[in-house]
């Protein structure tokens, strides 16, 4: 299941201007970065999940949190052994393995990673890429060429993933044993699959480019976009709330 695809809906989150959504996700992330309290980072995560749940995206938020926690765990372990401040917590003979400073900073960092990434990841659930890019072109004056590259890249991810599975199936059918538990062996087996994947990707990208050009890609200007993305009162409200949150986090946490 793809955790980055768009979930159609009409909740208060969905209805916001795409630019507001993007800015809000960043501001929320900044607030999390500025915050220096383990408990408040936890609170940020819970708050984000609660907001999503209210918009009917609870399951998506929880599954993303779970996946991000795996990343967080990795950061946690690194940080745990890296930071040597504070008192010794675990020692082996004379060697200090873990310190109190290491433990707190590892906890803070890993939670911060989760709290910062979560809103950015959830952005994809409530914003179709096309809308985001069109709004950026219209309101933020992003050159269309870049917007198009971004949307195309996102559109191709599921296509390539399907293609990869088909290729893997074709190889399985020939007797390649992908069911092996040995990771090195598995990587060895997957490497040759890159050739057919590359061949088909190049073809797809090429025909996509021709198709776009045949439909006047080069004629496009900033005003071309048909859909309008007006800012409303609720967009303003979200901006104000998040700026307040950032200020609060910077001053008090």
């Amino acid at each position: 299941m793809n955790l980055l695809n768009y979930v159609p809906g009409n909740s208060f989150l969905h209805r916001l201007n795409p630019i507001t959504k993007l800015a809000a996700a960043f501001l929320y992330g900044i607030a999390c970065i500025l915050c220096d309290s383990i408990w408040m980072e936890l609170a940020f995560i819970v708050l984000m999940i609660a907001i999503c749940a209210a918009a009917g995206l609870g399951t998506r938020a929880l599954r993303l949190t779970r996946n991000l926690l795996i990343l967080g765990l990795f950061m946690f372990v690194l940080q745990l052994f890296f930071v040597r401040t504070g008192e010794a917590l675990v020692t082996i003979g004379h060697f200090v393995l873990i310190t109190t400073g290491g433990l707190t900073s590892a906890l803070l960092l890993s939670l911060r990673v989760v709290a910062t990434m979560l809103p950015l990841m959830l952005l994809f659930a409530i914003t179709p890429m096309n809308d985001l890019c069109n709004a950026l072109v219209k309101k933020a004056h992003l050159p269309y060429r870049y917007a198009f590259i971004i949307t195309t890249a996102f559109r191709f991810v599921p296509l390539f993933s399907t293609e990869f599975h088909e290729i893997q199936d074709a190889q399985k059918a020939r007797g390649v044993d992908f069911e092996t538990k040995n990771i090195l062996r598995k990587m060895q087996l997957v490497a040759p699959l890159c050739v057919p994947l590359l061949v088909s990707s190049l073809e797809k990208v090429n025909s996509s480019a021709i198709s776009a050009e045949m439909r006047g890609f080069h004629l496009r200007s900033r005003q071309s976009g048909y859909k309008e993305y007006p800012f409303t009162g609720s967009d303003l409200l979200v901006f104000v709330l998040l700026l307040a949150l950032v200020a609060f986090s910077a001053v008090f946490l």
Partner: protein
Amino acid sequence: MIRFEHVSFGYPHGETTIEDLSFHIKKGDFIALIGANGAGKSTVSRLCNGLLRPLSGHIYLDGQDTLTTPTSLLARKVGFLFQNPDRQICENTVEAEIAFSMKVQGWPDDEIRKRVATALETFDLKGDWFPFNRSRGERQRIALAGVLACEPQLLILDEPTTGLDYLECIHIMDHIRMLNEEKNITVLMVSHDMELVQDYAKRVLVLRDGKLLGDGPVKEIMKQEALLRQARVLPAQIPSLALAFGDRFAEVFTIREMHEAILSEKKGDPGRKL
């Protein structure tokens, strides 16, 4: 050769579902699996070699339950030719490509060399070709050569002739028929092309929405227009034409038979002599 017993299958996203499907294919048969897109043809073919496994029920390949046998072992018995050869080809030379399956399956080196040489000759290929810039028809032949070099007992063809022209199609299908008749290889072919089914298959399984709608000798199935319509399949032209005349051309199945039937009617009727 292969037996489906009350097999059910569904994808997590709930697309095609196979429901309580049971059938048996005996060794040496030539089966066509027909139906509209989404009827479950590809799913059934992928269930045969363990690429997919049933959610309930059992599939026995030569007595082995596919639920408990790894795909890599099933692959030694089942050859699978995909619609798109490009998903299969991953080596830089035709020679290495044909040898690939045999290497993976652990065949002895001298045996592999021998078989590659035979395959190159049979399929009119050159060992040092770079497979990726050959034509679609040649790439499909390369893929087939690789599959057949392992001497599978069951050969599954998933829309093998898509994108091929008539000559390439005949070339590949005639070779497969020869293997079926002379080496008793069982063939399961998924196809939309009823003329192809009519020309090559012995028995036809008709699928609709994951259920078996019909199962019988090709001549019988091709004459059941209502059944084919229900399965959203376009019937072959000659059987369809013969049906328009009721019982009069009941025995007619091919162009030649239709032609002869018309001639004999003309002769048999003194008032309307040739």
